[in-house]
């Protein structure tokens, strides 16, 4: 379980400028301590459960505009989970993982070398 592959992709879109940036963190590319931290953040985020909870109780159509949108894809071993959240209503359990991924350098769009 500890060595199961873990990879997190976050696409941030929207905002006033409407730009799209993509960031990727793969446990395989990280030093052991950082990889452990990533696995912990992923476990705490519980994206699978989050997807379920958001489907059952979607956040109220928020007021506000020009906020960032985050499309989060978590690969855990064979499983892939996806959730879309927006600034102003990011679930608390997801915030630390998003904050960690935000520190990674921008990656090329999916499908390109290095992406």
């Amino acid at each position: 379980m500890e060595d199961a592959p873990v990879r997190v992709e976050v696409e941030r879109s929207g905002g006033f400028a409407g730009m799209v940036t993509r960031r990727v963190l793969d446990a395989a590319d990280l030093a052991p301590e950082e990889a452990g931290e990533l696995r912990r953040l992923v476990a705490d985020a519980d994206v699978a459960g989050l997807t379920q909870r958001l489907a059952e109780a979607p956040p109220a159509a928020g007021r506000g505009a020009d906020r960032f949108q985050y499309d989060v894809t978590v690969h855990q071993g064979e499983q892939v989970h996806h959730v879309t959240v927006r600034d102003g209503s990011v679930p608390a359990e997801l915030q630390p993982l998003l904050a960690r991924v935000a520190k990674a350098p921008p990656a090329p769009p999916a499908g390109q070398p290095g992406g």
Partner: protein
Amino acid sequence: MARHLHSIACILPPDILERVILQGTPEQREKALRTLSTDNALRSIRAQNAVIRATGGTPLDPHVAEGGTPLRTIFDCAHTQDPARAKIVRNEGDGATGDASTDEAYDGLGDTYKLYWDVYQRDSIDDRGLPLKGYVHYGDGYDNAFWDGQEMIFGDGDGELFNRFTVSVDIVGHELTHGVTENEAQLAYYQQSGALNESISDVFGSLVKQYALGQKADDADWLIGAGLIAGYPSQALRSMKAPGTAYDNPKLGKDRQPGTMSGYVRTTSDNGGVHTNSGIPNHAFYLVSTNIGGNAWELAGRIWYETLRDPRLKPTAQFKTFARLTLRAVQRLGYAQGSPEFQAVQDAWGQVGITV
């Protein structure tokens, strides 16, 4: 305490007005005292107008001098993302502070208020004198500005990709206009209705700039966010005149906005591409303005403003419905089918690929 007080120009119960008088800033105290001594007929007219508007009738013309001045407060978030703890750095009537973000936000809110009041007789976001709150220095190198449903929030930019988000008055106008839209048609912020929402903010943001500069439609640059991209002062985020040409640089790539329906982007990013597809109605507004000529805020802006307030403009409206309603609006303003003005609007939509 002072931050939680809402519009003094609204009808307030006596205990709240009393709290303002006792605990508000000198500015708020003065305004509260003025409100107390203002003719009560004004406030009942405003209340009546709110009801009349909500039921689809024509509001009364108040014929009073009240309204017409903004009530601005600028808060400094001190690089946190916690507006609740932000400190007031500039109150209405205070002189310049020397901090660029603070003073640009203050002036931008004033310019935006002025467009809406002078040209459209709208008293702030809710047309009842809602105080305007701007929060600056939000976050650490935060590359964004946004409307949170009650106030406008501005980041400093990271300095590498973006400069501070108060750098252009149209950005301030854009954010404040989201509040206006929320008080009127409440266009849902995704897909076509969201792109309309975005476009309306760009339209009135641009008009704020044009009105402040006294520019004719043909002389305006029609750019949104000019000067925002670090290192490329002549580029901008969006062009209403030529969508897809606003920026082209190694940092951000190339502007991908379409200007016609043939370029409409279907995506799940950005709430269905609201900042991308806004290029289409943006371009329509540019074409209406230049087809008609003169100052864009006069007729073109009035058509758009009346459409925004039309009860037939529903939150889920698509481009085509909006276009149809602009034709109704131009007719309501006295320009019949077949007139050059009506034709200007119809042609503009046709040019962007929407036939009405």
